[in-house]
């Protein structure tokens, strides 16, 4: 299987990565190089094999329903590139 420019553009859009026109060709080549290499996994017989879901066999830990965070708005907003009235600010979103 080989990726074309349109597919790379679609993936890049899904990943919200802008790829400049002059870089597209190179990116298509590199990604195809990697994909061709990982294609070899197709040869492995995985019939009836469960996918690994947890690396270490253990049960999911459950937390008690207790509020443990004081709610430090300043700390949450401290690194925000744009904030106003206690909100994060982004360019207007159209619904």
């Amino acid at each position: 299987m080989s990726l074309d420019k349109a597919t790379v553009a679609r993936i890049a859009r899904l990943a919200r990565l802008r790829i400049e026109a002059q870089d597209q060709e190179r990116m298509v080549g590199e990604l195809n190089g990697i994909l061709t290499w990982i294609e070899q996994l197709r040869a492995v017989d995985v019939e009836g094999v469960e996918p690994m879901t947890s690396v270490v066999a253990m049960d999911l830990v459950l937390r008690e329903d207790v509020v443990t965070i004081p709610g430090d708005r300043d700390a949450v907003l401290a690194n925000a590139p744009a904030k106003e009235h206690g909100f994060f600010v982004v360019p207007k979103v159209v619904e």
Partner: protein
Amino acid sequence: MTAPLVEGATGPWEVVIGLEVHAQVVSNAKLFSGAATAFGAEPNSQVSFVDAAMPGMLPVINRHCVEQAVKTGLALEARINLVSVFDRKNYFYPDLPAGYQISQYKNPIVGTGTIRLDMKDGSTRTIGITRLHLEQDAGKSLHDVAPGASHVDLNRAGVALMEIVSEPDLRSAEEAGAYLKKLRAILRYIGTCDGNMEEGSLRCDANVSVRRPGGALGTRCEIKNVNSIRFLQRAIEYETQRQIELIEGGGTVVQETRLYDANKGETRAMRSKEEAHDYRYFPDPDLMPLRLDPAWVARLKAGVPELPDAKKDRFMAAYGLSAYDAGVLVGDQVAADYFETVAKGRDAKLAANWVMVELFGALNRLGKEIDASPVSAVQLCGLLDLMADGTISGRLAKDVFAAMVETGKDAAIVVEEKGLRQVTDTGAIEAAIDAIMAREAAKVAEYRAGKDKLFGFFVGQVMRAMGGKANPAQLNDLLKHKLAG
């Protein structure tokens, strides 16, 4: 029951509806963090570093939220999956801090179940539940704080939601409304969601399509942004008509998401360009599969309270209520409890009548919910008891009740203050009768000449003279006797 059909210009159409309900889990803390969940807090004041998806932060699941989901599944008589998996649903949106929502995709915590609907015409419908899964809520974006900008509040981000998906079994707006009402009642009975649609604790998306009766399924549209049962029904009715008119006009329905505009009473396609969604679900590597202990599930099952269907059957059997009355009363657990308090040891039908006619009427006028009723169940008991022991008559009771609604006072106090105690003194009633008969001698003669119908006139006159307080039965007996001469 046959499916209700909608008549179009070219023949009948069948509406096919499935509902996706997002119910906010009642919990102190969020699904994967220790931040609070209270409604209406200052923006971003209930946000942990996990909720804000700060680098290196990790989710740890809230036991109580899991318990709430299982309880809900049990109440929907659904299959509880002893192993379920949390997946990441990947998409970009400013109120989704991690760029993914932790949800459950292939292996939800609850599988198929059912909800029974009691329709107005006395029929019942069984609606299938496809699944229930746990997921995180997103934050909230405000689009009108300042021009050109959206403002993001993450207080709600990470709050636990149960997504409850129905089969496309609903066939009318009325059924959809009944389904949502019933689901809300069940959630409230077991205390897993407060069902408050205005605050967004209960949200509903509707998938609507139309087809020729018995034909292949049509293309569906998903309606979002519906925040009341009334709007849900209106949105479905509008959307049904839109689709029928579109198809009959030679057009085709496009699968899309539409927003309901409550002001205009219509649905419209979302303005944003719809991209083909590709959520790239995969199991969240920060969380192991969730394994439930069957003994724990069994203990939860034993703790599930009496639910609306069982309560309705019991109300009919134990109190002799009609299916309709019982159905109305169990629709709200507070109302059902109210009724039972009043009915216990009293005339159940009278109690049902008072709750459903007088109390509900008064609440309706006041625009209040029953849990904010100015007259408590115990107070209504007091009123009914005063009627039963003859302290007040049935007609006066309504006046007393009106005063109770207004003042919140006990019935006995209202009766004392207004001097409404029923007169059972034979002498006093006889004196009033004598005075009326003397005043209305001509009518007495007519009555005695055979005009029986005048009896009611005399009752009214005497009652009025006594301020309505005469014991009606005594009044009747004495009046009959005296008029007979």
